[in-house]
């Protein structure tokens, strides 16, 4: 069974849009009608509905279903919950919202106003007992309880971007978890959000995996199956988040800001435009990318120069197809041909041409879109010198550090200050021997001269130094996520129990030094760790990963057994397209092919992540 998170989520949402009806015998969906009524309302009577969303579900549905597809399922329009809505008397309304107190109040208000005929409530995760009583009480008071047809807990609080990539849309999770000043309640809240999201993901796939994680995380004991859920903390490998990418998908994500499968690009200035006083503002275009985009799927994992050649080839193929089309529709007529034959050939050609025309226009649109994106990427790469940054970081991660090169780039004029900061932090995190105080100071001065915010730098330096000071003295595995203060490191304050153990292992354990394969493909630390886990091999050092096998007796963490075929990898604190691509490439290469789903709390770009590090640096007392 190949794990396809996106398909399962789409199926669940479509079922919801058809009122959770059981599919009929002839494939017609007979809707379940009102609460408790046995009347078979025919599909036509429930055919036109209004969909009410809130901000979270809007982001959830955006990469999943387009408006035209919603319309195919009978949704005439979708509105926001907290918007002023007008009555539409004879339409059923489907609510797909989070179960918060605010939303419940609004639903009660809607019911009291009698905006819609019948309400079907679907909560993204699940509604608590208390909120349910609040909802029911409010509705009964306003004489509207009978308008509620059904209430469902959807368990869908995650957003899928591709078949094997999901994201929980919890921004700044890394900062919240690693904040030294975070209260226990705050961390508990973040963890419970993560648990909800993970549970939803697993529930939607109807699987119950063996769980392996570097420490006792939010594991739940469920039924057993042949899957593995591996939980990682972001501190396992920080450098991949800051790295400048060189393959297409991660480049678009990092440089152009890919979010929810949408990219916004400013149209480049037309060449030769005179600089008038009133220049028209640059046109912003929003593009959508995803699995339906043939070029995105084919070239997503290739490095930048290869992508450009691919695009050229696509353009040539398209031109060829257009010429074929023109020939077939008889634009050039052979005068010697038999007129009857010509007529027949003409009609045949016309029909096939008309049939293939929409497909060709679609292809042209895709090619135009990617041309615009690649042009913009090229501009950015030239302006910021991203190729140099990439090669320096690549060599640093491989262990061949080029310190003079790095220093010259930091002093140079190309690249924003954030870029230089990222380069410096990657150097600090991956260099074998931590530089002495003088070198570190010099680098700090250069960074300051370049205008970078130093809090992130100092934070990274401190974390690295901490690791080298050795922190293996008796840190007991923490079962909960409460912040614990470490006596052995006076002055650092309280750090959440996650960061220290995982971070220490991340740098000095099995995955030190990321390997780069031929062709520039990079194996991230996560991929190497996953390789070890899924092969069921014994790890060289003491197993830093705890295993929770639902089949084993509860309460005991045993060892993993045998190679597994499917895995869900979850990264707490933020994920990245580089990791995702690396995992997918490894999965397809391995014999037999494995199926991996990758998810994280959110997908920040390198710059956003640097900001989070900077915030943490500011909050950490000296």
């Amino acid at each position: 069974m190949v794990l396809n998170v996106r398909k399962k989520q789409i199926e669940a949402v479509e079922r919801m849009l058809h009122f959770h009806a059981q599919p009929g015998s002839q494939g017609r969906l007979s809707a379940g009608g009102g609460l408790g009524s046995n009347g078979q309302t025919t599909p036509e009577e429930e055919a036109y509905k209004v969909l009410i969303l809130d901000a979270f579900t809007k982001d959830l549905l955006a990469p999943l279903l387009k408006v035209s597809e919603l319309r195919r399922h009978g949704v005439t329009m979708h509105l926001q919950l907290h918007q002023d809505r007008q009555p539409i008397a004879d339409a059923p309304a489907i609510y797909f919202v989070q179960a918060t107190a605010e939303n419940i109040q609004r639903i009660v208000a809607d019911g009291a106003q009698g905006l819609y005929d019948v309400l079907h409530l679907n909560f993204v995760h699940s509604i608590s007992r208390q909120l349910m009583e609040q909802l029911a009480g409010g509705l009964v008071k306003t004489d509207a309880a009978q308008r509620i047809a059904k209430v469902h807990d959807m368990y869908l609080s995650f957003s899928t971007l591709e078949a094997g990539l999901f994201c929980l849309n919890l921004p700044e999770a890394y900062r919240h978890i690693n904040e030294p000043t975070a209260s226990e309640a705050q961390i508990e809240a973040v963890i419970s959000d993560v648990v909800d999201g993970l549970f939803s993901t697993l529930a939607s796939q109807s699987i119950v995996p063996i769980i392996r994680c570097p420490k006792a995380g939010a594991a739940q004991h469920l039924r057993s199956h042949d899957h593995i859920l591996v939980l990682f903390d972001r501190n396992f490998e920080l450098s991949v988040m800051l790295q400048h990418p060189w393959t297409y998908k991660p480049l678009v994500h990092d440089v152009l800001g890919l979010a929810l499968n949408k990219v916004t690009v400013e149209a480049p200035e037309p060449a030769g435009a005179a600089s008038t006083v009133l220049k028209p503002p640059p046109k912003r275009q929003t593009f959508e990318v995803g699995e339906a985009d043939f070029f995105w799927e084919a070239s997503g994992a290739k490095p930048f120069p290869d992508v450009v050649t691919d695009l050229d080839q696509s353009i040539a193929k398209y031109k060829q197809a257009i010429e074929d089309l023109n020939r077939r529709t008889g634009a050039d007529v052979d005068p010697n041909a038999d007129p009857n034959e010509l007529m027949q050939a003409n009609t045949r050609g016309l029909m096939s041409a008309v049939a293939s025309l929409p497909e060709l226009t679609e292809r042209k649109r895709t090619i135009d879109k990617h041309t615009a994106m690649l042009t913009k990427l090229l501009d950015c790469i030239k302006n910021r010198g991203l190729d140099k940054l990439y090669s320096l970081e690549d060599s640093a991660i491989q262990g061949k550090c080029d310190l003079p090169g790095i220093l010259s780039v930091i002093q140079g004029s190309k690249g924003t200050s954030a870029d230089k900061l990222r380069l410096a932090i990657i150097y600090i995190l991956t260099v074998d021997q931590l530089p002495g105080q003088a070198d570190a100071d010099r680098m700090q001065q250069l960074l300051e001269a370049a205008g970078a915010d130093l809090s992130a730098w100092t934070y990274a330096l401190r974390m690295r130094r901490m690791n080298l000071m050795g922190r293996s003295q008796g840190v007991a595995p923490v079962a909960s996520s409460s912040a614990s203060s470490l006596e052995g490191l006076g002055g650092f304050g309280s750090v959440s129990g996650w960061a220290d153990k995982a971070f220490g292992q991340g740098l000095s354990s099995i995955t030190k030094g990321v390997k780069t394969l031929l062709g520039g493909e990079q194996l991230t630390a996560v991929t190497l760790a996953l390789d070890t886990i899924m092969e069921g091999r014994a790890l060289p050092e003491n197993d830093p990963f705890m295993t929770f096998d639902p089949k084993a007796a509860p309460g005991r963490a045993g060892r993993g057994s045998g190679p597994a075929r499917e895995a869900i990898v979850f990264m707490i604190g933020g994920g990245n397209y580089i990791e995702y691509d690396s995992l997918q490439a490894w999965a397809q290469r391995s014999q037999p092919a494995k199926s991996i789903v990758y998810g994280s709390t959110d997908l920040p770009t390198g710059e956003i992540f640097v900001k989070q590090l900077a915030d943490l640096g500011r909050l950490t007392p000296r």
Partner: protein
Amino acid sequence: MPDDRSEDFWQAAVVGGQQTGITEAHLRKLRNNRVLLSLSSVTDFTASAQQVAKTIQQLTLFVATHRRDYVQPGRCSEGERDAIEEQVAVSIKACTQNVAKLKDGAAADVKSAAAQPGRQQLATHRLGMVLLLSERLQAIGSVFDQCRSARFQQKAQQEAAAKRRRLSPMSLQASSPPVGSRRQFPGAADVQQRLQFDESPASPDLELAPQQQAQLQQESLDLQRELLARGDAVNAVERSVREVATLSSLFSAQVMQQAEQIEQLYSEAVQATADIASGNVHLTKAIRYNTSTRKIMLVILLLASASLLFWDWFYS
């Protein structure tokens, strides 16, 4: 795996009702009446839209069940196929007309909603329904168009095969000398071929009897006349076929045009709804600024008059 919590909701509603003095029986009665109320409160527009949707669904089922018979050769006679085509064409035409009527109704709603802002979303909802219907109609229209084109292609192929079959026995007989009865050949090429073949074996015997020559000439004139007649008939058939093809493409083009118009109207309506929402936001902001400005002006005036009075008193 969504969880159905409707029972929990009902329990909570009963508990809530008990707290406010509403009995469970009363709640149950309300719930049972709800379905009846829903059915009776359906507006005319929605009712007719549902009717059209039902018709389109029946049409889809009809095409689906008869598609195999229609497309595959040899399962249906031509007459049956024509009957199916006619039925489908009538149905599509009727649905198009109904959808056009609904569209007019929805467009009128949009115009009246400009005057009464409270009905904007309702108008958008109705336009959405019409758009949905036209999309479904377009889908079934294009499916049927494909069936028709398949049928015509088959016809064309059959014609070509028949032509070739008639050609090959003629080329076999062309080498045989009898000048007598050869009646059934179509194209001019065959006649030429025949005459050529005829001439070559005839060339060694140059003195043909004059009656035979006259006979040959007569027959060739007959053949020519027949050929011309057939050519005319073929042209006529071709013309009518092309007409039918253009008609069918016209159908789908019409529906598509309608769908485009409706889609445009719908997107404008959605845009209008969004604009109204943002307009509301702007208005509330403006009101807030106005009130705050007024308050500030008031305070300044009071202060100014107070200071005037103060200075006046001070210096008097």
